[in-house]
């Protein structure tokens, strides 16, 4: 998607945030455009929630600038055009879903139609239930409903799909698509690579408070899509690191049965496996494991530090 010729509706420049001298965000730059889904992807503790809270005006940045719709973060003009879904552990027990939503609707100048909120959140059947009787997934859906009830132009979602089951996830992503097609911009955090991949227009990868990669899901995926290839063999194979696209080889030898266990990390499992078979290597118990996000982050860190070292030399 070409976003260069459009004005961003929200942008943050060189934002740093530290807690007691410990940096949580370092020189973060970010632009968000109209009708765009931007996923902030990162492992736990990467600074995703800190970033959202800074953009919501709940945390003040140690340095840097934040601007939403041309206003500072946390101002009333911004709040009236924004919806937010935070990580909330409990809601006041003795109010019904309907009461919660009607109350939140009253805060906004042009709230979304109640029936439309029900449609997006899928809560119609349980609208008269007290919030204390809701399951974890239903609570998330209610929080989503509260986030969208002001017809927001900008929607912040902090780990929205946590504790949602598959059906709830599916209808949640449908709602996101529908909101996007109305022109709403959505900034969400997730630590699921597949979610960010399927549903976002752009991904920003955050690690240790720094933006380490930014791009379309396709571009990001090609960089971090490492898979593990595992197999055992009676033979002691020395030439594995020569196989194409293999980035790392680990070998465990078990003396008892004379078997060697191999684990290869490959950036293109299909190519590597073809070569393994082409070379007629003796291979048993072959398995391929999808790369975990944590591994991908580790890999990127290694690549980056290797790059830095090269530049220094």
């Amino acid at each position, binding site marked *: 998607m070409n976003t260069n010729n459009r*004005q*961003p*509706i929200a*942008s943050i420049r060189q934002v740093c945030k530290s807690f007691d001298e410990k940096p949580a965000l370092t020189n973060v730059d970010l632009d968000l455009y109209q009708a765009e889904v931007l996923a902030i992807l990162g492992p736990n503790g990467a600074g995703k929630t800190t970033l959202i809270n800074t953009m*919501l*005006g*709940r*945390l*003040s940045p140690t340095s840097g600038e934040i*601007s939403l*719709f*041309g206003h500072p973060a*946390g101002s*009333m*003009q911004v*709040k*009236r*055009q*924004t919806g*937010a879904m*935070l*990580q*909330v*552990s*409990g*809601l*006041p*027990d*003795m*109010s019904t879903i309907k*009461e*919660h939503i*009607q*109350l*939140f609707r*009253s*805060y*906004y*100048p*042009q709230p979304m139609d109640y029936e439309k909120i029900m449609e997006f959140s899928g809560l119609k059947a349980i609208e008269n239930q*007290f919030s204390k009787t809701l399951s974890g997934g239903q609570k998330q859906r209610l*929080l989503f409903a*509260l986030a969208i009830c*002001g017809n927001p*132009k900008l929607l912040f979602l902090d780990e929205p799909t946590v504790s949602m089951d598959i059906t709830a996830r599916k209808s949640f992503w449908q709602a996101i698509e529908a909101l996007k097609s109305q022109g709403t911009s959505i900034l969400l955090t997730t630590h699921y690579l597949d979610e960010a991949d399927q549903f976002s227009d752009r991904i920003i990868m955050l690690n240790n408070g720094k933006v380490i990669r930014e791009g379309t899901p396709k571009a990001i995926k090609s960089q971090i899509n490492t898979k593990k290839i595992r197999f055992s063999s009676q033979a002691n194979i020395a030439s594995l690191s020569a196989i194409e696209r293999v980035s790392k080889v680990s070998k465990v030898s078990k003396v008892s049965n004379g078997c060697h266990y191999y684990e290869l990390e490959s950036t293109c499992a299909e190519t590597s496996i073809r070569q393994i078979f082409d070379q007629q290597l003796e291979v048993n118990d072959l398995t391929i494991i999808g790369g975990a996000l944590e591994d991908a982050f580790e890999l990127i860190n290694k690549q980056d530090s290797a790059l830095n070292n090269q530049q220094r030399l």
Partner: protein
Amino acid sequence: MMKTLIDDKPNLMNIFVLETKTETLRLFRTPGFSIPTLLFPIMFYIFFGIVFSMNAVTMPTYLMITYAVFGIIGPALFSFGVGIAIERGQGWFDLKEVSPMPASAYIVSRVTLTFIFAAAIVILLFAIGAIFGDVRLMHWQWVSLALIFVVGSLPFCAIGMTLGLYLKASSAPATVNLIYLPMGFLSGLWLPISFLPEVMQQFANLLPPYHLSQLALKITDMDLGFPVALHVSVLAAYSLIFIFLAVKAYHKKDKK
């Protein structure tokens, strides 16, 4: 950068009404909180003011007034103090903070709720005093007392709000009780202030419930005879200090 201005505002009155309605409904659906809060001062009054009354002529009237003060302080401290602390602990308060809810709506709804509570306690105490304690007052005295009690809950709303914004959810109920009960006793709400030793009477001058009870006791000529202006200014000073602290805590960023 695109600049959008939203001039139209939501209807503030509508927010106040809905917020208050939601809070009130919540309270009526939580009888585990509301009934003990109502019965606590009434039970004390029946014990010390009527059944074991030391002086059947003045004591039922005197203690009806001081237990009313004790009664109205409870909901003010608890609904604000404990309520806000718990909602903060859950992250619910944070969600309201990032929503465009006007802060005034949060305060107005809870103050209204405290007023409703205070009125209920006062009516119950008056009824028990009149029926079982033979309390006889002029019409204007009943009405003035009721007004003093309801309006007099405001400084305690401010104190409760500050407590709620500073205390942790887990420690809030215990801490608020630790302030509420001794402050009530030391202010001469459980037993007449003149029963307390001289040092404690001096100390009571620092406590807002003492000043509210003296204001109310003036209506029946049972106070210690200090000027109205003194009591009103101490209560006003307490309100201002705690409103200032609450506003400071509310606007403080980076809270955890």
